[in-house]
């Protein structure tokens, strides 16, 4: 024993610099010093550099007149301030992201289910689609739509007419613009009200079913309530909605709604590209539900539609939703590729702002704040969702 102890005393393990606690504290102190030191050094250099170039830091430039214009949804003009331009870019980012998410989800769902079809042809088409788009950069898809397809459309003078008021040319898609009448808010109120009533009917029907076992076609009744109430109010208020038609002048088309080629190519490309990823997510989600679940549900006497709705989909969603959310985040981040075609999203506008002003740090800070804020919101929502649908195991 004494010998062993004597051996321990001289063991290198007991030297103070081998003590795990001492080491861990030392490592952390070194790291802090390194990180803080680097940041301080960067900051110091930046201040010197900015002073030399005569650029005042801070967000004061946001209130100044920008002096450039881009086609945005917020009707900016060359008198708009930098701040307003950035806001317009933000709105454009959100609009294209939401629309691309919608089309990618629908397309991805269809393709994902098609990949599991027992029909060989359908399955093969879906596989080819997924394998093609998953393996090329999204930028190529965007440019292909922009330069390869939309730019080759005829110019505005011999635009392709689809129906009386829709036309397709290399300047975009022109269509009538709905103009809301003064009483349109009443229709919206009626619509919301009918939704609430339909929801109440559904709850009542569910409660009755639980209590008595009697069914009630709450879906059809709800739809009827929404259609009748909203439609009735729409007609009663008398012409709350008119259309402004696009008018062809000599060189251009004015009025109406224009979908610019920039927006169309970005929207189509992101939708088509991301759909291939969503399809894989949907496929793996459905495959993750074991065959036994379907068989057990059939054995309980559920019809095919109910098997899918009550047994397979709820379990598949548990697998699908988290990667789906990160795919939505990817779409939003990929909207920054707009800079390649000149769609005025946050990054493209920011790029135009930082060139004349030299306020690169502030612009990058705005970008970071938006994208990071969005990822934090999405991950919080995901955590909440995961906690809600997590398996309750006993």
């Amino acid at each position: 024993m004494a010998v062993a102890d004597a051996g321990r005393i001289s063991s290198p393990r007991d030297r103070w610099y081998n003590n795990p606690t001492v080491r861990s504290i030392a490592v952390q102190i070194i790291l802090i010093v390194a990180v803080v030191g680097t940041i301080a050094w960067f900051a110091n250099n930046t201040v010197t550099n900015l002073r030399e170039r005569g650029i005042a830091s801070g967000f004061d430039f946001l209130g100044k007149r920008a002096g450039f214009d881009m086609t945005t949804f917020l009707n900016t003009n060359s008198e708009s301030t930098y701040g307003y331009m950035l806001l317009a870019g933000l709105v454009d980012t959100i609009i294209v992201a939401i629309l691309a998410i919608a089309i990618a989800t629908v397309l991805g769902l269809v393709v994902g289910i098609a990949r599991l079809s027992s029909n060989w042809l359908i399955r093969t088409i879906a596989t080819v689609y997924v394998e093609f788009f998953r393996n090329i950069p999204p930028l190529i898809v965007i440019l292909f739509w922009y330069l390869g397809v939309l730019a080759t459309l005829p110019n505005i003078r011999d635009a392709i007419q689809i129906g009386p008021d829709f036309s397709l040319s290399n300047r975009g898609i022109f269509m009538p613009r709905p103009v809301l009448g003064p009483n349109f808010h009443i229709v919206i109120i009626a619509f919301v009200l009918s939704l609430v009533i339909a929801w109440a009917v559904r709850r009542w029907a569910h409660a009755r079913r639980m209590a008595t076992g009697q069914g009630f076609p709450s879906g059809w009744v709800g739809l009827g309530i929404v259609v009748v109430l909203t439609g009735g109010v729409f007609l009663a208020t008398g012409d709350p909605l008119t259309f402004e038609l696009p008018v062809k002048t000599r060189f251009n088309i004015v009025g109406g709604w224009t979908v610019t080629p920039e927006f169309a190519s970005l929207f189509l490309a992101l939708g088509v590209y991301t759909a291939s990823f969503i399809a894989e997510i949907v496929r793996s989600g459905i495959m993750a539900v074991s065959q036994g679940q379907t068989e057990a549900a059939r054995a309980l006497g559920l019809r095919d539609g109910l098997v899918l709705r009550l047994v397979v989909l709820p379990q598949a969603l548990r697998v699908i939703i988290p990667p789906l959310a990160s795919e939505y985040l990817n779409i939003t981040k990929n909207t920054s590729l707009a800079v390649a075609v000149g769609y005025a999203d946050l990054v493209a506008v920011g790029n135009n702002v930082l060139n004349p002003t030299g306020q690169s740090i502030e612009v990058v800070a705005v970008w970071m704040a938006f994208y990071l804020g969005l990822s934090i919101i999405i991950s919080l929502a995901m955590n909440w969702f995961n906690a809600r649908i997590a398996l309750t195991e006993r």
Partner: protein
Amino acid sequence: MTDMQSQTDVFFVRQEMVQASPPPMRVRGVWPWMRKNLFGSVGDTILSIIGAILALAIVVPVLQWSLFNATWTGDNREACAPNTVGACWAFVKANFGQFIYGRYPDPERWRVNVTFVLLAAGIIPMAIPSAPFKRLNLLYVFIIFPVLSGCLLVGGMFGLPVVETALWGGLFLTLVVSYVGMAMSLPLGIILALGRRSKMPIVQWVCVFFIEVCRGVPLITVLFMAGILLPLFLPTGVNFDKLVRALLGLSLFAAAYMAEVIRGGLQAIPKGQYEGAKSLGLGYWTMMRLIILPQAITIVIPGIVNTFIGLFKDTSLVYIISIFELLYTVRNSFTDPVWATSTTPASGLLFAALVFWIFCFGMSRYSKFTEDRLRVGYKR
């Protein structure tokens, strides 16, 4: 005896043979296959017809445009301009050298070719699981090859003239960027992943912060930072090559994604492995190097390859800070008045898409192959 007789009389004994059931449906041949896979039911038949129409509506015009109606030969736009319904492959052919080497000077292009061969010599044996000398191979891929090819491509020694990186471009530059990105992001990602799982809170926070910030923003903003902000951050006058800045941005960005993949592998290793290693008296780094990382990385090879695929596709964005990789070289040639026709952009983009597709599809097949090979251990 008679009892027995009477008993057997009441038993039901079948007198005649049961009728043979019909032979099973033919399961081989074209028609039975079609009946099973295309026309199983009414709904199936309708789907097949819709699918066939869809496939024909897409495949026929694509084939016509890209093959049957395409212009294959010609020296300038004269050849392609009259043909508005077919691809202009003559344009791709004429610019092929530029698409591969960028503006790398003609007499020096053999250096790029040698690099391609050296690269293949490292990657191919690495990818074959049964090839020997894996340790040596790893050393070659991560250290010897980068140094060797760097000297070769930049030049300035052994009598090779210097070729500035501003002249690099095309597929060759895409490969350089993605290779460096991959070779840097893997070790960086491992360090970040270990840091994120560290018990030291400050190490953990720093790693989490870095990973989440990189993953939360688009690559374009990271590249803007590398291109525009980095010169601001450094002392006045200190500036380094644009390509190096792009590589730095891309590697750090990819490392954050890599770290999350490797963290997944680390989390999948049972606690017993850590405890077993520690009870053998191994220290942290020895334990990681010999026990944990070999297992963790093997599990996540498919994830790592997927990150590589993403990185390869992302190289198409470095044009933002004027690095002329393949896609930008192709786009740049659209403005060349010698070749400006309405079909040039689509032809060039299709070519670029095919090149990217071949590389990415190859990698994804390899990832699938590894996945299947690794799963053998779990099969029952």
